[in-house]
């Protein structure tokens, strides 16, 4: 008896928890509200199924619990009922899958006007590279990584000279412009994860992965690493600031290019000697 009550309470409790608890996703800051919609559809369908199955079970347990002299009904199977249930389940599954696949096809189709932004991960910090005035990123290779060239950018490649380097600092993005995040790691697996953007993707050393999104509101958002990358994994944080166009341009002016960072080396060394 208690179990029938407990089953009802599990359903009621779960539904109330879902509706009343303060824990829900963070307010979205990108164009991927489609993902949220798909999630909500899934919540509805699965929630109804869960409540229906468990409540039906509770009813059965209460109604058909053992009483003196009671005997079970004999019924090996019912083809009609089973077929019917299969069809309904199939429809429910299709109702979740179809929007899911549709949104996925959008997710992997990068719009032509998206700007490239490269994220470089290493244990345990984030760096970024923006294409300079030419709009193109230079090639890179983790074999080229050294103390002077921590991101492994190819110094021979003319496209790379004007690339803006943001090493171990905040990334700024202009609001309302689609960006294609090119993800690169120079040591182990990482995952560039900003909860407000919804999108995320692993970074795999040896290859470049990507995802795209359009920031839809200004603000400062936290970057976390979402793929276990060693002891510092939990502390691998960064910040993405989404700015208005003016603020973004102002920030961009302050950044150094690859050429600026590599060329004045001797000057810096000379200054050190001079005192």
């Amino acid at each position, binding site marked *: 008896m208690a179990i029938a009550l407990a089953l009802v309470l599990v359903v009621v409790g779960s539904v109330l928890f879902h509706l009343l608890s303060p824990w829900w996703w963070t307010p979205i800051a990108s164009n991927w509200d489609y993902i949220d919609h798909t999630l909500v559809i*899934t919540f509805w369908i699965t929630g109804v199924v869960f409540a229906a*199955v468990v409540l039906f079970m509770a009813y059965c*347990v209460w109604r058909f619990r053992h009483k003196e002299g009671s005997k*079970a009904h004999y*019924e090996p199977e019912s083809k009609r009922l089973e077929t019917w249930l299969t069809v309904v389940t199939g429809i429910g599954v299709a109702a979740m899958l179809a929007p899911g696949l549709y949104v996925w096809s959008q997710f992997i189709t990068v719009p032509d006007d998206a700007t490239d932004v490269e994220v470089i991960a290493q244990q345990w910090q984030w760096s970024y590279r923006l294409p300079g005035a030419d709009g193109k990123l230079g090639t890179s290779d983790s074999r080229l990584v050294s103390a002077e060239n921590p991101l492994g950018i190819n110094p021979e490649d003319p496209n790379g000279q004007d690339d803006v380097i943001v090493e171990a600092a905040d990334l700024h993005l202009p609001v309302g412009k689609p960006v294609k995040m090119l993800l690169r790691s120079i*040591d182990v697996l990482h995952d560039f994860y900003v909860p407000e953007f919804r999108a995320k993707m692993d970074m795999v050393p040896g290859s470049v992965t990507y995802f795209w999104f359009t920031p839809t509101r200004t603000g400062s958002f936290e970057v976390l690493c*979402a*793929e276990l990358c*060693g002891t510092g994994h939990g502390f691998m944080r960064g910040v993405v600031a989404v700015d208005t166009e003016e603020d973004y341009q102002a920030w961009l002016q302050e950044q150094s290019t690859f050429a600026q960072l590599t060329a004045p080396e001797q000057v810096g060394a000379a200054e050190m000697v001079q005192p």
Partner: protein
Amino acid sequence: MVDITPRAVDAIPPAEVPDVELYHPHSWWTTYVFSQDAKVIAIQYAGTAMAIGLVALVLSWLVRLQLGFPGTFDFITPEAYYQFVTMHGMIMVIYLLTALFLGGFGNYLIPLMVGARDMVFPYVNMLSYWIYLLAVLVLVASFFAPGGPTGAGWTLYPPQAILSGTPGGQQAGILLMLASLILFIIGFTMGGLNYVVTVLQGRTRGMTLMRMPLTVWGIFTATVMALLAFPALFVACVMMLFDRVLGTSFFMPALVEMGEQLSYGGGSPILFQHLFWFFGHPEVYIVALPAFGIVSDLISTHARKNIFGYRMMVWAIVGIGALSFIVWAHHMYVSGMHPWFGFFFATTTLIIAVPTAIKVYNWVLTLWRGDIHLTIPMLFALAFIVTFVNGGLTGLFLGNVVVDVPLSDTMFVVAHFHMVMGVAPIMVVFGAIYHWYPKMTGRMFNEWMGQFHFWVTFIGAYAIFFPMHYVGLVGVPRRYPELGETAFIPDSVHTLNAFITVAALIVGFAQLVFLFNMFWSLRYGRDAGGNPWRATSLEWQTPTTPPPHGNWGKEVPLVYRWAYDYSVPGAPQDFIPQNDPWPEKAAPA
């Protein structure tokens, strides 16, 4: 439809099996230690699995203590945290659940349920256990190795698994882990051959495939899958050992670790992930299918009703087993593999939900118009359905490629897989132990301790893992020893985490009551008799309880019917054992 006439029954010769030398062990050592009796091996497997599982349980407390009260326990450093998480996961999935369902329940139940005297290759079966024990010991040794066990996460993803930024990566930890897994796979293969061939060859007269209890179907299908899936883990482990020890570059790309160029080059970490999940996804069903089978039998027996839609249940088990080999990459939607794979794997993953749902409907429909005895095995079976439905439905979130994107690698995933392949199968394990303990020992479990254990475990486990989904929904990533000051995580999440930890500790301690009960009832439990649940399947029809080596005494049983003849109209009792010739008279002995 072939109906066998009573005349044909009379024609069956009795099967007197000659006394086999093997069934008369000569010494204490060969009876209890180096035994070739599948039932003793089963108990050895189960005992070892539960012992190492207890270690994993304690590790989970430490993990939860850190998550619930970060900064309180100085000895739980990030390194230690990752080591605890890794070992907890690995032990629970492989050394506890796989070993317990297949090595434990498989060994005990297959020969009894199909009416065999023993496994077909008893010596190999014994070796299987001892190699498994060795694997467990190697695993335990890693706790005492310099640098401690590996902290690479149970998925052991390279490159980090074998680099110095991960605990045990450049020390003995990862080596012992890989060695232990390789041993486990070798040992399991030996056992698995036995389970499969025994079902194929060892069935007694009249035991056709469609008369087998679903428990045997579940364990059989899971074993076939495991035999084909574990080689993938074997390949991954061997290649990773080569990378780590000999410096090959199967999985290792050119990389710079802590400012230093390593000599690796060109390898593919994704290749490892494909191999790992080619094992890892079937592994989910290797744990789930035996649970599906066992829970079907528990529900049917304790609701005094045949399992609804037996044929559909069999087809669903086989179908799920086959499909589960083409869904593996749904663990890799955000791994950076080619995005087109997402369409294929999302579709196959959601298709597999259909046969799974049918199984759930049939369990619930078995309750409909039943005569439900709310015994402890039945309670655990009901708890299984609730937690499995819950965990299975959240699987639809994670399997549906784009919905997975925001949720993957968050606590939502942790909550999902704990619910569906942690809590749910463990409920079945408990139900099964309460159900078959009387056969194994001849005594009943203490009812009151059992009730206490059930209620705390069911409500407690639900209270741990249901709210945890919402922690993930907020965006809290998994495998974070502490969240620190993070803007998007409200303080209430920390309170919720503390609540989950308290619930976890309570549930953990309730398991000690269960263990105590297991030993207490061995001595003080009520006498069970041969068939306390009045069940139909063959294991309850043995001449003596607990069954001796050789199971059946002089003659192996002759099977007249399927395993679910409960409440048959016109029958004198509400169950007809499989070896009961009713309504005909027995074949002449």
